[in-house]
């Protein structure tokens, strides 16, 4: 980045690194990188720095006492809502809601995201806590009428953390839990076929696919491109 011409590419390089570059600028940057070793080195330095930051700085964990205290706040809230005036208001609002609320078909994506968020509440994420797929897979035996494929992708940065039994889309399903750096990925699995989907709801990304007679839903606050990468590992 020594040549004056490179200065204008400095922020573009960074935006590209952060996945924030538009198509036109990306093309301009690619053309420049092809001819500029200094900017290629700069791009590599950015990549190394990001990798080191994520690898060498462990995320602080929420102190359990604080989590418990703030979880209780939620229950305190519901008690306060039971004062008589509120209750009457609620009953009235509820009766209105009966007429006003449009009936929508159940949306699997919204349900999958809601399931993921519910699972993130303290103590809900995992019934079997193991990074060993030979422990997780047999755990499902006798609890489900199918045997979910359990894979560990620790080698490529998606370590298996455990699993749980879930009730989803009107049937019991297997839920596997994976990590990607700070992010938790839920994978819901049941036998069947469905058209592949991908999208975002409430800030959570989801991808669904069918493979070997099973439907898969992966949900996470991980960015969409890494979640797609995770989904590809299964197929």
């Amino acid at each position: 980045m020594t040549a004056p011409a490179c200065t204008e590419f400095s922020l573009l390089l960074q935006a590209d690194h952060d996945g924030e570059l538009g198509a036109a600028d990306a093309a301009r940057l690619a053309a420049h990188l092809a001819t500029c070793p200094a900017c290629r080195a700069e791009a590599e330095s950015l990549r190394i720095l990001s990798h080191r930051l994520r690898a060498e700085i462990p995320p602080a964990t929420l102190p359990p006492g604080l989590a418990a205290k703030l979880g209780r706040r939620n229950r305190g809230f519901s008690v306060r809502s039971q004062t008589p005036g509120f209750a009457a208001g609620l009953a009235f609002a509820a009766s209105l809601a009966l007429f006003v609320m449009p009936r929508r078909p159940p949306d699997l994506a919204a349900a999958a995201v809601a399931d993921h968020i519910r699972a993130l509440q303290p103590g809900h994420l995992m019934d079997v806590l193991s990074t060993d797929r030979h422990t997780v897979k047999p755990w499902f035996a006798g609890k489900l009428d199918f045997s979910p494929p359990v894979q560990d992708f620790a080698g490529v940065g998606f370590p298996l953390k455990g699993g749980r039994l879930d009730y989803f889309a009107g049937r019991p399903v297997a839920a596997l839990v994976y990590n990607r750096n700070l992010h938790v990925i839920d994978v819901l699995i049941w036998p069947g076929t469905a058209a592949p989907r991908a999208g975002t709801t409430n800030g959570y990304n989801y991808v669904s696919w069918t493979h070997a007679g099973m439907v898969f839903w992966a949900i996470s606050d991980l960015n969409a491109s890494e979640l797609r990468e995770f989904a590809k590992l299964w197929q």
Partner: protein
Amino acid sequence: MIVSRSKDDYARLVLPHLAAAYRLALWLLRDPATAEDVVQDAAERALRFIGGFRGGNERAWLLRIVRNAAMDHLGRTRPAAELDDETEDPGLSPESALLCAERAANLHEAVAALPPKLRECLVLRELEELSYRDIADIAGIPIGTVMSRLAAARQKLMAQTRDLRP
């Protein structure tokens, strides 16, 4: 159903992001006990403001509240002029900040020694993996400022990382 919706919203909007809230508070304040106080303060504010949430990224929404609570806390305990200082950490004198940066034994210390406004952008992008738009909303600055602060933070770290061991 306003009240019970708020309760559901608290469970949906706030509880899943408490760990991220605590991490940001800790990076901004660098003291676990103070970070806990600020997260509690932020959770109370979130509960009050929950009706005003207009959709979008709820983690960014909560982090903005955490950030404001942290700044209010710093404002109460430190003179305002120090907070506006773009170049040095408000908690350290210029000399000790420089020494600290030079002597950072590892990357964690090097990040902790960054000026607060640079540290905030770097942590939100690199460790929380938020978009420029979300970081701009959290810090209350334009996207262009996010980009320049991020670039400055990375240049400082890259200048040091060659000597820092994992």
